[in-house]
């Protein structure tokens, strides 16, 4: 906050200085440096103020709230120390929620990346008409979770949905996609894989494009077939990109909300009650902002760890080259 006040103070001063333009020429080096400082802080001020109000302050407030109990209006009632966390970790529902989230990540991340990788590799060839396929595979990315989930809800419809109809054509019994606790998470995962495909595909494609052509040519000269080339050249050079996509997908899985809210509302029997959905439930349905914030802090720690692993890994990779 001190930094911010300073920057704001300097910001207003810079405007005064800017008005007296003549001083630029007469000003010594010191004044000029001061002016540059002031101007830089003015440029940074809008972002810094917004970050302070909507990022840093809420982060501190989250920690604060997580150590307190609140009334339903969100006012702090009492300091409770780590009780909120203790309650969370002793409640079966929260642990169940963590299990569901991990399972959800396990269901969506590997398949989502593998599919995108295969499609990216296939469209990387210089055959005609690849642009159409590139367009098709990128498409899910621009569709919002909100509208995609509505579409998929009808595809999953127990009797009128297209999926069960296709199954019936193949003489397979209808599947209770969203209504059975055994299937619901799996169904949401299918929809999520579809939804993430666009992003994964775009990133992996541009990763492949970044591999220099002469690598491939020299491999061809050595008589390597396409599969060998892919495993020996594309995969190692693509590994940082794959790693990036993996971390982003795991983080994404931990942040899933809209598709859960629209498709299953956390049910049936909490079988799809992932992290953010339970934060939402706790804070905005049950109005327990303290325990809600405690969950948010746990989420933060998990995502922070994932991000740090990623940075460490990338650092090492860069060092290697």
């Amino acid at each position, binding site marked *: 906050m001190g*930094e911010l006040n300073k920057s704001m103070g300097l910001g207003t001063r810079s405007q005064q200085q800017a008005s007296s333009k003549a001083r630029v020429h007469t000003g010594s080096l010191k004044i000029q440096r001061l002016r540059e400082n002031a101007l830089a802080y003015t440029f940074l001020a809008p972002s*810094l103020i917004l970050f302070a109000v*909507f990022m840093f302050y809420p982060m501190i407030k989250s920690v604060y709230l997580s150590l307190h109990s609140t009334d339903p209006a969100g006012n702090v009632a009492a300091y409770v120390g780590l009780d909120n966390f203790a309650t969370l970790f002793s409640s079966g529902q929260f642990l169940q929620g963590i299990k569901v989230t991990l399972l959800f990540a396990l269901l969506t991340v590997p398949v989502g990346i593998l599919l995108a990788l295969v499609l990216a590799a296939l469209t990387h060839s210089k055959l005609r008409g690849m642009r159409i396929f590139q367009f*098709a595979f990128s*498409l899910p990315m621009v569709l*919002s979770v909100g509208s995609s989930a*509505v579409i998929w809800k009808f*595809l999953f419809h127990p009797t009128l949905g297209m999926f069960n109809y296709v199954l019936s054509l193949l003489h397979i019994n209808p599947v209770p996609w969203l209504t059975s606790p055994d299937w619901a998470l799996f169904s949401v995962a299918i929809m999520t894989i579809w939804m993430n495909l666009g992003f994964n595909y775009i990133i992996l494609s*541009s990763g492949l494009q970044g591999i220099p052509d002469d690598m491939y040519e020299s491999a061809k000269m050595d008589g390597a077939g396409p599969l060998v080339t892919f495993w020996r050249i594309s995969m190692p050079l693509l590994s940082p990109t794959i790693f990036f996509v993996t971390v982003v997908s795991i983080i994404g899985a931990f942040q899933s909300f809209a598709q859960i809210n629209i498709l299953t509302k956390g049910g049936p029997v909490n079988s799809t009650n992932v992290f953010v959905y339970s934060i*939402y439930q706790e804070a905005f349905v049950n109005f327990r902002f303290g325990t809600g914030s405690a969950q948010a802090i746990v989420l933060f720690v998990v995502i922070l760890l994932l991000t740090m692993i990623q940075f460490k890994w990338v650092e090492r990779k860069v060092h290697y080259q």
Partner: protein
Amino acid sequence: MKRHLNSTLVYVLLTIAAALILYPVIYTFFMAVMSPEEASAYPPSFFPHSFHMDNFTEVFEIVPIAAFIGNTFLISGLTMIGQLITASLAAYAFAKMEFKGKNFIFSMFVATMMIPWEVTIIPNYLTVRSWNWLDTYQGLTVPFLATAFGTFLLRQFFLQLPKELFEAARMDGCGHVRYFLFHVLPLSRPALGTLAVYSFLNMYNSYLWPLLITNSENMRTVQIGISMLEFQESTSWNLVFAGTALVILPSLLLLIFGLKQLVRGMAAGALKG
């Protein structure tokens, strides 16, 4: 001969994949023009046998979808402009200016990228509520006007601009403000375009925040509106899908015209990662 066979196989595989991936979208447009009877008939039809364009006009009568679309475009546009302004200013300071505490402030920007937005949602909700900003446009937009990702994207681009240009401009007595406004910004149109597409789409597609802070029907955004449609018992599926089709249409158009920009932005994010 073998090569030929291979490429045929690739085409077949890609076509099947494309058909499967596109199907939910095609299905939406098919359902959107079906008659109510056909849309709720069993067995469901793969292709529409009728062509009801009235569905689109009817959906406007049932829900204030025009208001939803208007709201969403307004908040997405405002956020986009806001992010372009704040991010380009900050990016310029980081790329072209020397000032005290540059490294420290830069690491603060990095730090914001590590804070998942969902983690700050409870305090942000309480803040916005205490300012009486629930159900307002400022409540929907102001928290999103600054972006660390956008700042990085633009900083990277600004750094690539030739140094000579800057020196020449300085020689001519051009200060930072003029250099920024009349040289850097015009030269950075590709990067600004990427950020514009990216931020617009993000806001257009956002769900949780609008769900939390809007209550009245005329403040809802399309994403919330569309999920409300399905809860209306009286509406039939063809209308739900007509609404959904209307909502996803702008995104599809954006993809057609902005795919290249978008890919560039995403790739920049990945490389930075």
